[in-house]
């Protein structure tokens, strides 16, 4: 089973990387860019009986390791 975890900075938390990318896009002549945020995506190939079990497992991983709730939000997607 494949889980895709997307981890982004909580809204309100400064995202220096996103800001710098926004700036660089502007310098390259791209217009109409209002906001850029950067996050991480972690793809996990794992054995699990079914999507529900997989999701619970990955949620546990997020809580224990992958994300820090103080500054980050995460979302999980499971595919076969």
């Amino acid at each position, binding site marked *: 089973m494949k889980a895709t975890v997307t981890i982004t900075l909580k809204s309100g938390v400064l995202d220096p990387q996103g800001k*710098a*990318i926004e700036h660089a896009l502007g310098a390259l002549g791209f217009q109409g860019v209002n906001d850029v945020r950067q996050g991480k995506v972690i793809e996990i190939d794992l054995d699990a009986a079914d999507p529900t079990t997989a999701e619970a497992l990955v949620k546990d991983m997020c809580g224990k390791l992958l994300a820090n709730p103080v500054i980050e939000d995460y979302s999980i997607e499971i595919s076969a």
Partner: protein
Amino acid sequence: MRAAVIVFPGTNREKDIAEALERASGKKAQFVWHGDSDLPDVDLIVVPGGFSYGDYLRCGAMAGNSPVMRAVKQKADAGVRVLGVCNGFQILTETGLLPGVLMRNAQLKFICKKATLTVQNSDSDFSSAYSEGQRVVFPVAHNEGNYFADDATLDRLEGEDRVVFRYADADGTVNKAGNINGSQRNIAGILNEKRNVLGMMPHPENATDPAQGGTDGLGLFKSLAEVLQ
């Protein structure tokens, strides 16, 4: 030797390299702010180390795709010598002046230490003061120095004798133990096809004064001073 040192927002080793250039050539280098419209007429353009644009997105990506680097590319095509050190090397690969890419160090840590290298070839304007196979000690200070290119590119670099420096162990043997960051084939510094552009991760500029604990880096700047008088 007339040298220009390009400064991007976030560049931070420009002082170090300007001093090294002066120690070797007796002449002061000129700093060029990335936003200045024209590149001065010089014999050597240096892209120094640092964290241009914070190393955000990818090291060297934003500087590498900036207008001033397009101008540097033109100069390089016209034969001007270009030296990129550390972040400068990353920028030169992003600009396309050199092949490959510098990835995150294999051990996932920033690494600052004195590294042993071997001079793979002294047949370049950047390394003529060294002898082939010479063991030198240069400091390294990087988080993304892990050189990667596909096998065809690597074979070509080696076939054309374009690898100038490789990481080695303390005895000067090129092996896995000496490969501090996981670089393919222990590559620490390479030339472009025309051999007028050198990119390297280690910092020869921080080994140009006895007070720095070694002067092995002086040879590189002396080599340049020699050809560029």
